C-alpha cells in the first residue's frame, strides 16, 4: 500500500454568484492588489490516504468528491494527488 496526500479543491460554479469572492476581491484591491480579477472563494479538503496505486486512489477520491465533497448543482471540484 502506498500513502498519498490528497487535496480536493471545491469552488462555486463560474455562473453562480459568489458574494464571498466579490467581497474578498474588493478587499484585495483596497489593500493594493489593483490588478486582481475573477476572485473565487472555495473549500480545500485535505487528507492522507493509503491505496494500492495512484490511479486507484484518484478513482476512489473522484467518486467520493462527486457524491459528497462537492454539490454538483452549485460546485465543481478538482482532485490533486501526491505520493508520500
Amino acid at each position, binding site marked *: 500500500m502506498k500513502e498519498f496526500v490528497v487535496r480536493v479543491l471545491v469552488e*462555486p460554479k463560474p455562473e*453562480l454568484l459568489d*458574494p464571498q469572492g466579490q467581497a474578498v476581491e474588493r478587499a484585495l484591491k483596497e489593500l493594493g492588489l489593483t490588478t486582481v480579477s475573477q476572485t473565487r472563494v472555495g*473549500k480545500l479538503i485535505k487528507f492522507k490516504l493509503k491505496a494500492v496505486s495512484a490511479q486507484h486512489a484518484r478513482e476512489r477520491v473522484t467518486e467520493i468528491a462527486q457524491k459528497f465533497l462537492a454539490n454538483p*448543482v*452549485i460546485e465543481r471540484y478538482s482532485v490533486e494527488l501526491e505520493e508520500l
Partner: protein
Amino acid sequence: MRAAVVVFPGSNCDLDTHYVLKDLLRIETELLWYRETDLKDYDLIVLPGGFAYGDYLRAGAIARFAPVVQALVEYVERGRGLVLGICNGFQILTEAGLLPGALAPNLGRKFLCKTVKLRVENAYTPLTRLCREGELIELPIAHGEGRYVAPPETLAKLKSNRQILFTYHGENPNGSLESIAGIMDETGTVFGMMPHPERNCERLLGTGDGLKLLQGMVEEVLA
C-alpha cells in the same frame, strides 16, 4: 394517522415541530432517531430545522447519508406518505436528490433571523391547501445557507409543473433564484421550505400563519 419528526445529531427544531403536531394538532407523533430505517407506518415524516451533523462542509451534506434518509428515498419511491423538510430538512432533501436545486450561502454572507412575508404561489397542494393563491403570510426565517439555486432547465420544470409553493414577498432576504422560498417534487408528496412554519403557530408568538400549513398536511392524510 401517525407522524414522525426525525432527530439528527444536531437537530434543533425537532421538539418545536413535535410540539405543534402533537400538542396543537393532536396528531400521534414520534421522535424518529436518525439510525432508524423502518418507516413503514408513518403517514407524514418531517425533517426539522437545525444543524444536522453541525452542517459541516455544507448544510445537510453529511446528514443526507444517515440511515433514515436512505430509507426515506425508498419511502418516497413507494409513495408511502408525505415528507416535509423545513430549513435544514429542506437542505438535506436537496442534497439527497429528493428535491431539485440546492441551498447556497446567503448572498449577504451572514446568518439571518427575521420575520419575512411569503406569497403562496400554488394553493392546490397538501401543504398550502388551506391558503388562497396569492395570499401573503408571515413566517420567521433563521438560516445562513438559504439561497435557493437551480439550473435553468430545473427552474423551467418547477414553473411548468407549478412546483413552486412560496416566494419571498417585498424583499429577497437571501438572494434566492426568483425569490423561491419553498417547493415540492414532481409527485407532490415531498415538500421543502426554508421558513419555519412551526415557529408561528400561535397568536402568542405572531400571526399564527404557520399552523394552517401543517394542518393542511394533516388534513391531506386524513382526507
